[in-house]
């Protein structure tokens, strides 16, 4: 009975199927169906894109970090080898009693060629009312005023290195080292500190520099320690410290 009914319906479906659904209801159903299709497509597309994106971001991130590390280890150490020791400026600072202008004039008279030093004096005078000949304590205060700045520009960086290498007062040099040590996230500053460490003629400051840089993982640090050990003019205590660190320095840190 059922099979017969099925075959009759199958044969005459078009004739029997005369009812038309409510257009509003039908339209709603169609919209829902289209929405589902769209959602399904979107989900699939999102999955593929997101996965590719994640992978790409991870890869880019990794390669950027590798590149940065490489840059840290091989920075453009411009000026790192340019540390010119000029005892002349030291003498000028001690003997002068005027202002920065006087020091610059004295430096010119003595054919002092280090442009960085003159630039530094001029710059600090303009920017920080720095009076190098006034007193060690004033220099100290001016230098510590730089400590609050997260970034220092190249001229100020040069100035700090000049102070670190040439100021006649060890406390002032230590102040410059303090300010520079707070900027050691900058690979170029670290590199430059390693180079100036060798030429530092104030034993107390040199000791602190060695201490400071022993944890910085600079590629040339061990080589420079070797230079300090072999330099007979270097203070005995400093050489002893360098010798100790040289012996202890783990090979995989360099």
């Amino acid at each position, binding site marked *: 009975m059922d099979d017969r009914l099925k075959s009759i319906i199958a044969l005459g479906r078009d004739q029997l199927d005369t009812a038309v659904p409510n257009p509003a209801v039908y339209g709603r159903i169609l919209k829902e169906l289209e929405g589902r299709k769209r959602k399904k497509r979107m989900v699939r597309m999102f999955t593929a894109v997101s996965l590719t994106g994640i992978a790409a971001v991870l890869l880019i991130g*990794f390669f950027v970090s590798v590149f940065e590390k490489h840059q840290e280890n091989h920075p453009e150490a411009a000026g790192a080898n340019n540390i010119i020791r000029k005892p002349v400026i030291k003498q000028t600072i001690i003997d002068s009693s005027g202002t920065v202008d006087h020091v610059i004039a004295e430096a010119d008279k003595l054919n002092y060629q280090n442009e960085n030093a003159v630039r530094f004096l001029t710059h600090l005078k303009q920017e920080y009312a720095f009076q190098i000949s006034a*007193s*060690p304590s*004033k220099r100290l205060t001016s230098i510590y005023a730089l400590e609050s700045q997260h970034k220092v520009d190249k001229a100020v960086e040069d100035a700090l290195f000049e102070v670190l290498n040439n100021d006649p007062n*060890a406390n002032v040099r*230590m102040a410059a080292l303090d300010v520079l040590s707070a900027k050691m996230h900058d690979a170029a500053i670290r590199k430059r500190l390693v180079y100036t460490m060798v030429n530092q003629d104030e034993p*107390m400051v040199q*000791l602190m520099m060695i201490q400071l840089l022993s944890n910085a993982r600079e590629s040339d640090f061990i080589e420079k320690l070797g230079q300090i050990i072999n330099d007979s003019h270097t203070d005995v205590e400093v050489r002893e410290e360098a010798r100790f660190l040289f012996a202890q320095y*783990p090979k995989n840190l360099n």
Partner: protein
Amino acid sequence: MKKLMSFVFMLLFVSISLFAQESVEQKKIKEAQKQLEEAKVDHYKKLNEALKMVGARADVGNVKRKAFRGDNVQAVTYTIPFATGILELNFAPDSIEGYDGKEIILKSWVEKEDQELVDGLVLVNSNGVADNTGMGLRVEKKEKDGFLSISELDTYGVPGVKMMVPQSVKLILKYNSTYQNEKITLINLKSEIDVAVRFNPVVIKKISGPTTINSMYGKIDAFFEAEPTKPVSLISSYGDVSVNMPSTSKVDLNIKTTWGKIYIPQSLVGKLQKDANSKENKEQLKGSLNGGGNLFVLSSAWGKIFLRLK
């Protein structure tokens, strides 16, 4: 689609494995740094013990020298008119005391027997520079007015010199010899002080001018009767740095040590904080007292730092 997915997962796998490799390397480096730190601590313990022994030996030497002096001595006084300017000392006097005067007065002693032997002669050093004070010191005025230097001729030091200096004179003291390592006391000075010594402990009392002092091995003791109104920087590498000042002092404190310890009054706990910029220094505290004002730096790489407020 399957190909794309497998490619993506392959990329992910490569990335993760590379990161994992990186973190293993970091771990190795940290371990190596830890070993280095431990070795350093051990080294500095030994170094401190050695330094104490050296200090003890030097003390014995000084006691012997004093005992040898006995009563057979003759007082020597030398006076230089110098009311204002820069005074540079290249020897280590026992004390430098400021006073309201216009002359620099040097007081010391010489062996009577030595005086008889050298009667009519003058002491010179290997550069041919002669003693012009009668106590083994050379006083020289530099080309510029207002700049006077006093240097020792004897490389073994001139012991027991006491100085009186006009309060307005700026003082520069530089001394590196190992032979004269007794304490140097500076009292009642109002002008600028710049002291750089190697072995001598330094004591300052009633000082009111700008002050920068450093001693590589010596201890630095500072007693401020009144609030410091000028910048102060006291630095020692191996010695302790101790400061006693009024609790009303308005200063910007900057205290740091690498291997030493910092002691501060209970009232300052929580007011001084580690400097956010400085990651390399092991212990560094900064803070303002009573609203701040003058820079006040206390630093000792291997020694202890004591700050007392009264």
